[in-house]
């Protein structure tokens, strides 16, 4: 692979990671959704670039799904849901922005150390892609545990899933990538429909055990 193609792939994968960081400090739901749309857009660019470089036309499908479904349809649908449920004011975070950003940096450092050490023999592009992808996955998880609101939790899950798509497209010639991205899109569609139908506002987590136990009637 020539130097330029390599650098562009690198730039785009790094861009996805950067946008992941941007999501961590958003404290308004609308802003969060816009940043997520950007996340999906950069991902679509990255996947399309991989399709060109690897000469794997089926990956254009994955890029198309990311662009149409995740960068346009889902953010618009979530915008409407937020409007209907009247929860656009702010995001309740469990942890403050400062500690979250620090934790995010630590996670990225961790995934770089782990992945770059583990994949010494692999193709350099694939290994750096994987390191970026793992960082995006971990930041998505971090977002899911630091947010209380169901919508922002779903956004966290989708950014995690974007990380997986990044990993899958970075793995050269991996079969079933398109099928897997379709399967994930169905999953996400179900989640979004679920939020809308059942008007789930808060996430149900194990942090607030007391409230949950009361709810289950396991404690008086």
């Amino acid at each position, binding site marked *: 692979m020539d130097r330029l193609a390599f650098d562009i792939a690198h730039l785009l994968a790094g861009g996805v990671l950067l946008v992941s960081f941007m999501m961590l400090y958003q404290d308004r739901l609308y802003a969060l959704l816009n940043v997520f749309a950007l996340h999906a857009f950069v991902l679509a660019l990255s996947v399309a670039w991989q399709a060109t470089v690897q000469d794997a036309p089926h990956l254009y499908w994955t890029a198309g799904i990311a662009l149409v479904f995740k960068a346009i349809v889902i953010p618009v649908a979530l915008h409407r849901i937020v409007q209907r449920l009247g929860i656009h004011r702010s995001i309740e975070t469990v942890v403050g922005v400062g500690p979250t950003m620090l934790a995010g940096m630590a996670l990225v450092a961790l995934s770089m150390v*782990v*992945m770059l*050490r*583990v*994949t*010494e*023999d*692999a193709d350099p592009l*694939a290994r750096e892609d*994987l390191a970026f*992808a*793992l960082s995006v*996955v971990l930041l998505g*998880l971090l977002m*899911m545990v630091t947010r209380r609101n*169901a919508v922002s*939790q779903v956004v966290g*899950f989708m950014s*995690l*899933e974007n990380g*997986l798509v990044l*990993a*899958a497209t970075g*793995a*050269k*010639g*991996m*079969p*079933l990538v398109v*099928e*897997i991205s379709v*399967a994930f899109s*169905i*999953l996400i569609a*179900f*989640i979004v429909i*679920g939020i809308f139908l*059942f008007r*789930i506002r808060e*996430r*149900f987590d*194990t942090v607030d055990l007391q409230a949950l136990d009361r*709810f*289950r*009637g*396991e404690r008086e």
Partner: protein
Amino acid sequence: MSAFSAMPIDPVVAVLATPLAAAALLALLPGYRITARLNVLATFVTLLAAASLFFAERPEPGDFLMVDDLNIVFVALNTFVGFTTSVFSASYIGHELAIGRLTPVYLRFYHAMYQILMFAMNLALVANNIGLMWVAIELATLTTVLMVGIYRTHEALEAAWKYFILGSVGIALALFGTILVYMAALPVVGEGMQAMVWTTLIQSVQTFDPAMLNLAFIFLLLGYGTKVGLAPLHAWLPDAHAEGPTPISAVLSGLLLNVAVYAVLRFKLLLAANEAALTPGPLMVAMGLTSLVFASFMLYRRRDIKRLFAYSSIEHMGIIIFAFGMGGPLANFAGLLHMVMHSLTKSAIFFTVGHIAQIKGTQSIADIRGLTETHPWLGWGLVLGVMAIAGLPPFGIFMSEFLVVSSTFAREPLLALPLVFGLILGFGALLLRLNGLAFGVPAGSTAPSEASYLPLFAHIALVLAAGLYLPPPLVAWFQHVASLLG
């Protein structure tokens, strides 16, 4: 090999196509009586197809499907419990319709989902492709999420949501692990489908990069471990068991957890075949023991009867993962036996609990008392089931737990201490609760039940029979599979 090889229909295809066709049909047909019977019929045909797998000539493993000595055990167990649960479901669902918890439209949906779940689980078991296995497990998760939330009460939706989010995270981690396995295979096997085919992977795994495999296994263990319900990733499991329809609790506990165990085992085999990679045993032993001890403690504080047995499932999954983590012929044999016994016993318990909760109109343990007096069949069925699950002789679980403990004592005496501690703790909690449920002054409704006792007592009889006498061919088969597991 036998008459079956001349059959025009491949049994593997039949195991997959029957539930799929039944799902389409059940989604269209109205009427409770016909659909409940059709559901039973479809699971029965699937069971027959699975049984014929033992006799039919095995096809060469393809890029997507395969049958080997390991997964055939899982498929047989899966289809058998799927069949008995559908018999139980027929009598259970009638009552739910009568009291209006389910409407006819939801009933159609329920039956279709039941068959799709059977399809997804069978597909995950016969998949020879780690990508396909992942897709099948995702499908199984999705259908169970929909079924857990089918009553649409606040609690059911909470449970479904929690299951959904935690299950999705687990599934996502498992996919990352799958991608890493592909990356590890890439330099050796080359690009394309072959690098995801399990039979190809196991042949050439010795030359894979061990560091990559290690990392992949950690993701896979965490991801599929979430579906097994291993602590600390178990949070979805009690809610999902407690709030959905009871046949689904039985299938979740008895079958879906096994499918996830199977996925973990497949990847454990991959790692074990590569000498330079880390030994997966200690990780599994640690997670298994944690789950066992944690769930045993949690059993004491339960107030909801289905939640109680859900924690007991976590406990037993801990024992199974522990046994497979120990490895070696004896511990693997014990793990396999324990898995089969647990599936049979736990689904039998959920059959009784389902009817009991319907009669009493509550799942609260405090409101259910003196069952042996008011409902002798259900009461004594529960007593037998709980005795079996607690590990009392002469039931099969006693034997498998005994094998796990004795093989651990022989090899790692120190590990046996927390193991025995957890077992005794869980035993105490279950008997304590059983005492209140089954004996004493009756409380709550004493309405007669319209239960079908056949699946319940068939399971308990099998567990009892296995505890008294295991037929030599079965023992030989299990020993053979245990030796495959390394």
